[in-house]
């Protein structure tokens, strides 16, 4: 397991790029070159997906806004006590989207909310995919009763209504951002686990796995050095798709009042707006932006995910 895998020390393949230092190539440099090459190939293919490019552009923009929130709207815009405006003001030059029931600028809250939504979405998706990959690889690698039990559990989670389970978890735990992340991550992993297991089975049936085993590679070595790199592209595409549903679930939980009420998130803003009577008062400028923001981010991640998926598997027939 600890030994360097023999395959990396093999002579370079014929398809190597023109080398600058062909003589002094360490296995590490070879690997880096190969990865760079496949990335370039991936990007060339990805570039042809117009919707994927739109999604990527939107994501970069939103991420920049979220990162620069303190610079853009000021660090104190979430404060309830020294809010700059009157409660529930209409849109004006000073407050382009009006104010909330505490007199805070809705636009500023929207910018701050991007941070929570993105953080929760990314972390929850990461947790979900990590659990799913672990279970998938283990269930695909080990056969026998252990794998059977794992897959039974996966199937059981798969048919559970995800949102109900997440709500149940969020209800019994403390109201915090971490609860939401945990609730989403723990309830959404089975799809990933099934995908990864299918891929693991396909990879493990190849002769080079048998070769690695014959050379004395243990379970850990095979799973980490051979199977994992081969399921990674699939896992990446899956992560992108999971993020968008995680962001939607986060906003749902926040809307139902199951998130930390002290942090500003888009779902929480919608809950605030509803409780403050923005619906019956017809204050659409308070309600519309957070939902549009959620939809925009979720859509951007979905577009990216579908583009990645179709680069990896052109048979899916995704419109460009």
């Amino acid at each position: 397991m600890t030994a360097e895998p023999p395959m990396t020390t093999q002579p370079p393949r014929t398809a190597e790029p023109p080398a600058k230092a062909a003589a002094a190539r360490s296995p590490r440099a070879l690997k880096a070159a190969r990865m760079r090459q496949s990335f370039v190939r991936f990007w060339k293919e990805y570039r042809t997906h117009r919707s994927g490019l739109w999604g990527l552009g939107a994501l970069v923009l939103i991420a920049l806004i979220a990162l620069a929130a303190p610079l853009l709207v000021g660090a104190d815009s979430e404060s309830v006590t020294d809010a700059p405006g009157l409660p529930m003001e209409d849109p004006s030059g000073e407050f382009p989207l009006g104010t909330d029931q505490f007199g805070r600028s809705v636009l500023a809250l929207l910018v701050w909310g991007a941070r929570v939504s993105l953080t929760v979405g990314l972390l929850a998706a990461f947790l979900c995919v990590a659990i799913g990959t672990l279970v998938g690889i283990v269930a695909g690698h080990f056969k026998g009763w252990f794998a059977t039990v794992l897959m039974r559990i996966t199937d059981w989670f798969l048919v559970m209504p995800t949102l109900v389970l997440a709500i149940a978890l969020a209800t019994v735990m403390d109201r915090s951002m971490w609860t939401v992340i945990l609730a989403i991550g723990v309830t959404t992993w089975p799809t990933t686990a099934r995908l990864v297991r299918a891929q693991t089975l396909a990879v493990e049936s190849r002769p080079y796995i048998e070769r690695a085993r014959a050379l004395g590679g243990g379970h850990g070595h095979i799973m980490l050095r051979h199977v994992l790199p081969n399921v990674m592209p699939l896992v990446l595409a899956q992560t992108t798709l999971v993020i968008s549903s995680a962001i939607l679930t986060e906003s749902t939980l926040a809307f139902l009042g199951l998130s930390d009420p002290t942090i500003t998130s888009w779902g929480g803003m919608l809950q605030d707006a509803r409780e403050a009577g923005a619906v019956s008062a017809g204050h659409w400028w308070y309600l519309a932006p957070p939902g549009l923001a959620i939809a925009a981010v979720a859509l951007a991640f979905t577009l990216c995910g579908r583009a990645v998926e179709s680069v990896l598997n052109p048979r899916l027939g995704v419109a460009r």
Partner: protein
Amino acid sequence: MTAESTPALVHSAEADGLADAGPSAGRGPRARNTKAYLRYAATKILGAAVSLFAVLVTSFFLFRLIPSDPVKHMTGGRPISSEQLENLRREFGLDQPMWQQFLDYIGDALTGDFGMSYQFHAPVMEKITAALPATLLLTGTAYILFTALGLWLGTRTAWKHGGKGDRFNSALALTLYSVPSFWLGLLLIIVFSVGVGPIPGLFPTGGLESGGETGFAYVVDVAHHMILPVITLVAVGYAQTLLVMRSSLLDEMGSDYLTTARAKGLRDDVVRRRHAVPNALLPTFTLMFVNLGHVVAGQILVETVFSWPGLGGLFYEALAGPDLPLVQALFFFWAAAVILANTLADVLYPLLDPRVGR
């Protein structure tokens, strides 16, 4: 990263779902078809029973993860004598040891008794059966509509794939799929119930009926109340059916049997309706049942937003407490519904697709 080796092996979520829908193929020789099928169905039903029991056990322990005193919640922090507290505890069986509570819970649940609601001081089952018809009406209508819409648009977009209509419909479906259902509901209320600018309030803001109507007027009134919630559920729901139908029909499009059908001189829409669509329907069929989980989620949010007196609205009210017996029972109820639907799909699938499971 051996990117060159992966493409053919990457499965879409949908394709994987399809593969799991059927049992492992090649069970038993042809002569014993029926017997093999019955054994297969029995396995599935037995598995469902085990899953249901697991849900029941989970629903008990999940809500006791965090030690909390429900009686404190019930009294809402009002000053109350310790004697009264004891009485409340006894009333809800909370003075029993955990294992006793567990056995009681399982025993009662098997006879259809899920205890008393903390909030309403009424049997949980009574609340659920009272809310069920409203939910079935709303969700059932929306479910039929979005499945039909998804299948129709999915077929159309795939048949003319790459065209303007395909691009527009796929983009629209993806966008609506990304929209939070509760937000869409709130927005529809603002625009069409409260009224924005020149648009008058056309529809009621929520509820199932205005009250006081009877006979045909009552039916019209309920339908009037249903329009916005149904639109919301359909808008966020049809995308998945569309996308799966589209991709499974695209999979069929290159098939030889379609070329043969065309070579026979059949008209284009006969080829589509009689040859391609029935085959493409199979994966979509599984999805329709798997989708029920999403339908439940949509139901909770849309019923909450439109104050619809169904299970979803009841769940939202129960969360505020939290009214544990009610939350617990609804959790079990929905999980059971989805498990049963999936089992039904598993059992029916080999009957629809003779290639699987015989």
